[in-house]
């Protein structure tokens, strides 16, 4: 339950910045476009443990971000917030890439027509681009959620494996296996497989619907 709740939270957290990044990468023409696209996708190809280490350095009480958060009384490392952060960072690239592909499929003539009718860019996005790319947004959300559920490497580095506090499904499987509790590990594997299958199935179904429509 903790894993599902945290993954859901991470998914919610990644939606607004993810939509903004997807739109920027799909429609923006600016210097550093390729650099931004590469940076956004970096967690996909970097070892998750390395991403976790970067997050740990940034968010530890003496790190550049952690120091600022500490002044506001917010502690991240080895708390549920660290789990959520790791999940969001690891799920974001999948969300952004899926939504970006969906936005690219939206015919730009609709956006141009909306602009000539007096719609400012944000209104064009909210009333034309977003509804027309909605299946990809839902598909991206499902993918991001599934990725968050399965997140392990970054989580174990920045959040550890504290029972009842930071232990996620993936971390529990690892811990049970390490301690010889194979039956418990098998149950966790089954649960995680079901959640992953359901999310991916829904995501693929929505993506194929979106392709058929376009």
């Amino acid at each position, binding site marked *: 339950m903790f894993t599902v709740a945290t993954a859901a939270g991470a998914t919610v957290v990644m939606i607004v910045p993810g939509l903004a990044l997807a739109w920027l990468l799909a429609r923006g023409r600016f210097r550093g476009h390729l650099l931004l696209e590469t940076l956004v996708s970096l967690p996909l190809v970097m070892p998750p443990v390395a991403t976790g280490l970067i997050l740990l350095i940034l968010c530890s009480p003496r790190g550049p971000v952690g120091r600022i958060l500490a002044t506001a009384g917010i502690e991240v490392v080895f708390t549920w917030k660290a789990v959520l952060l790791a999940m969001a960072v690891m799920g974001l690239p999948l969300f952004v890439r899926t939504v970006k592909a969906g936005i690219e499929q939206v015919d730009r003539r609709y956006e141009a027509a909306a602009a000539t009718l007096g719609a400012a860019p944000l209104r064009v996005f909210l009333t034309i681009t977003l509804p*027309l790319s909605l299946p990809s947004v839902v598909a991206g959300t499902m993918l991001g959620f599934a990725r968050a559920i399965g997140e392990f490497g970054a989580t174990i580095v920045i959040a550890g494996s504290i029972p009842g506090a930071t232990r996620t499904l993936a971390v529990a499987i690892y811990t049970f296996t390490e301690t010889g509790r194979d039956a418990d590990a098998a149950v966790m594997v089954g649960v995680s497989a079901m959640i992953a299958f359901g999310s991916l199935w829904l995501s693929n179904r929505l993506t194929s619907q979106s392709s058929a429509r376009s």
Partner: protein
Amino acid sequence: MIALDFVMEQGEFVLEVSQQLTGRITALFGPSGAGKTTTLDAIAGLRTPSRGSIAIDDHVLFSSATRIDVPVHKRHVGYVAQDVSLFPHLSVRRNVLYGRREGQRMSLPTVAAMLEIEPLLDRGVSQLSGGERQRVALARALMSSAAVLLLDEPLAAVDLELRRRILPYLERVRDELRVPIVYVTHAREEVHALADFVVMLERGRVVQSGEPADVLR
């Protein structure tokens, strides 16, 4: 009055227009590739000229000299593109109301009655025929209280019979509204039927302009 004085360079194609459009309906007439649609795009702000200026009355929309480039959504032009571009996820009613502005001069019932689209309002756009789509697109542009209407070959994709049926609607818009219209076409009969001023374009240049009877002899 629409004052055009700009150059647009797009690869090897160069469009050079220096012309005042003074008619109630000005037809941009010429063969394919002459630069007619590009001229409309420049007025609407969908393409940016390399240099020059574009103004409607005393409102400058673009000026390379003074670095003015009014964003598309602030230009107050109603653009009916050749492909019409009705929003596929909205009903006809929501399409028509999309560009509605505060203090608009025309209400939905007035526009719907003029273009005879009342029975279509609650349909989806995929249920419309070619002629109905053209009329809905025209209604949508009219509802935006545009300072100028830009119509890009609104009758090009329809057959002769449908053309005969839509033409009166355009004549009605011309006669009942005091909105200048720039009308792109390569059909002489449409110029004669609708326009009171014609600008003939060829290979990106204005080769002739004036009253249709003089230019299209």
